[in-house]
């Protein structure tokens, strides 16, 4: 990538900026992420070398990483399937960031939303699919939203810090799910372990690609994901409510003096963030798992924080970050099968990618020849 180097002096730099005003943006949006991915993969290989994995296996594992994420229809289907909940929950966290709230509670909101969705999913036999699926999703979103709104309301009414209350709500939700899974009307008949009844067939998000191969897991949640991205983009940047969210996030004092109702903004932003996480949970139980078991959220709520940060809290950025994380996850599973390298390596690579993308200054310091010289100051 060193061919992007461009010798510049002050004048041509100024000319260039007039001609191509997005040069810096281009570097930040394209070159930095590319660097990040490449360097992260190299460092991942170094980690494998350090733990006594031979070169041939490293090669095989990276081939598997690519082929498992984008190498076939099945791989793409897996990537998208993994990306859907990450993107949905990530959108919620990004929305919170925009409004100046740090919602660590996506994990709990996913669990609560998912549980509500499961109960709705098996409780109404005979409903037609066209009613049942939206019902499941709406109930999941509502449950997640209400659960998160507790933290928002506490913050608005009493000033309780949302970081504490969402952490506590996470811990409460784990216990609540454990308890609910043992209730008679939720636990599967004839089972002693905590596992819920299965979602009815009419409440499952339809699989999209079964006409190609019945094993393809991609489901209609992918439309949900794209719809949510568009909706959040519209909400944040085209509506008054979104403006109030962003204003409160940028400068709460100024927003209050401008007459915005700070408390209402907090409750609404938290509620919406929770609704998106709840939707992610509903999407998992109705599209992938078909039931609930302890810990079915599988850390998605925490990965979603990374996704939101990586996407710089911008809806389309979150979508891209979600797709990248989904691809790494799908590829990582393939890597574990093909090369016998633990999927935990993916965690290392994800962390490295984020740190390089989040620290353009660091990338520029490491690879000075990739960038035009005058642009070394970070945007505040």
């Amino acid at each position, binding site marked *: 990538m060193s061919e992007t180097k461009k010798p510049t002096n002050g004048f041509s730099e100024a000319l260039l900026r007039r001609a191509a005003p997005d040069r810096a943006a281009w570097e930040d949006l394209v070159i930095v992420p590319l660097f990040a991915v490449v360097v992260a993969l190299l460092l991942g290989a170094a980690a494998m070398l350090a*733990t006594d994995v031979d070169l041939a296996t490293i090669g095989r594992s990276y081939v598997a990483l690519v082929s498992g994420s984008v190498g076939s229809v099945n791989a793409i289907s897996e990537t998208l399937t993994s990306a859907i909940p990450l993107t949905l929950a990530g959108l919620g966290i990004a929305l919170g960031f925009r409004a100046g709230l740090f919602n660590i509670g996506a994990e709990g909101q996913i669990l609560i939303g998912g549980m509500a969705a499961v109960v709705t999913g098996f409780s109404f036999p005979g409903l037609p699919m066209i009613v049942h699926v939206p019902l499941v999703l709406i109930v999941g979103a509502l449950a997640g939203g209400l659960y998160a709104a507790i933290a928002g309301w506490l913050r608005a*009414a009493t000033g*309780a810090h949302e970081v504490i*209350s969402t*952490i*506590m709500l996470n811990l409460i939700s784990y216990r*609540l799910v454990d308890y609910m899974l043992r209730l008679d009307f939720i636990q599967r008949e004839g089972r002693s372990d905590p596992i819920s009844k299965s979602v009815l067939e009419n409440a499952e998000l339809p699989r999209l690609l079964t006409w190609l191969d019945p094993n393809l897991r991609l489901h209609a949640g992918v439309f949900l994901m794209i719809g949510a991205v568009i909706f959040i983009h519209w909400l944040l940047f085209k509506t008054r409510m979104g403006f109030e969210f962003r204003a409160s996030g940028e400068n709460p004092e100024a927003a209050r003096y401008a007459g915005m109702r700070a408390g209402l903004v907090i409750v609404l932003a938290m509620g919406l963030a929770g609704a998106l996480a709840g939707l992610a949970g509903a999407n998992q139980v109705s599209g992938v798992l078909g039931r609930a078991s302890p810990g079915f959220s599988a850390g998605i709520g925490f990965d979603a924080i990374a996704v939101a940060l990586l996407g710089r809290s911008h809806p389309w950025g979150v979508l891209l970050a979600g797709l990248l994380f989904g691809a790494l996850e799908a590829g990582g599973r393939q890597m574990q099968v093909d090369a016998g390298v633990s999927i935990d390596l993916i965690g290392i690579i994800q962390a490295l990618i984020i740190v390089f993308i*989040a620290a353009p200054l660091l990338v520029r310091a490491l690879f000075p020849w990739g960038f035009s010289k005058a642009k070394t100051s970070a945007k505040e």
Partner: protein
Amino acid sequence: MTSTSISDPIAQQTRKLDTTKVRQAHITGWILLALAVLAALVFGAGSEGIATFRLSRPTDPWALPNLQVPAAAFNYLVAAVLAFLGVRQFLRGGLRWTGLSLGLGMILAVAAFLVWATAGKGFSLTGMLQATVVAAVPITLGGLAGVLSERVGVVNIAIEGMLLAGAFTGALLGSLVGGVGGLVAAVVIGGLFGFILAALVVTYRVDQIIAGVVINLFVLGVTSYVSSQVYSEHRFLNNAPIFSPIRIPVLADLPVLGPMLFQHNLFVYGAILLVTAATYYLFHTRMGLRARSVGEHPRAADTLGINVYRTRYINVTVAGMVAGFGGAWFTLGSVGRFDENMTNGLGYIGLAAMIFGRWHPVGALMAALIFGFANSLQQKLALLNTPIPSEFLAMAPYIATIVLVAGVVGRARAPAADGEAYVKE
């Protein structure tokens, strides 16, 4: 009246504070009354017989007799006191003791609950208090790491990762070179991650929360990867010695207090020492004053000749070392082997303890003790067979935390420059 108050901003301010206070007092009042009803109708009416609390083992040098509490009578008494405290919140002068009343009320309610659960049975109070102190150790150290770095204006989400790194390194080096070597290595690795956090946020101006999340992800990735890739084949690398308890002469023989405080391994003593040292450092030394000024107003500190960058580097690195020490507790102080993600979110609870403790080392210690108490209470109560599902018992401390944070702590104030990068001009 309105016209005078508008022209007088100070009076307006005071009245605004007053209404907040009044509302808090009333909320507290309602909570206390609800607890009184609970104590009377559930705990009082539901208990029969005598609750026996064991305070000492018969072999102890100064054995205390068992504490015998007539359950129903005790709980009705508690309900009466709670009702009195609650009603007083609505009367004149109720504003003054809001926090104290709520704290006292919570303690009484827990006592009533314990008596109810133990009625007709026996329960080792000392054992539970001992377990409380042990469970509080990693939370205290995590919270202390948070205090040290947030006081210089660096948000530390990375506590979880630092704890995990300390646990991992402690186990690995502990297996290779022994306990002390493992402990030193854990502290060094913790400090290294503190330094990395400082470098990312101070020099490279990465968003502080991103940097913290990245460190957590990275440590979780590396440690899980190594433990699944390497430990499965080379088990001897994950077999560390455990520090044995040190009995402090004489003090360890005291009833109740002895087992609670003076029969632990060095992590408990270390945690208490570190909290003391950090309090002294932050609030009674020139260095500490400088550190806090960097957290409150870095520009002003810089103008006075304090090196903002260096102060942040040093304090965040020390915070990392504290967290590394806390992490070593998981392996060298407790089970002697590393498991994937064995800190299991305790770093985040440490973060909560820090906020709960209002960014003060002693506050963080107190908050950690509450979490530790809740944790050990839940474990011991499983033996007593109460009619409440154990999941709800496990939830109770977290609900109580939310209530306390909402009711008492309220708008606790973080250091003013917390989370902001400082760019020297």
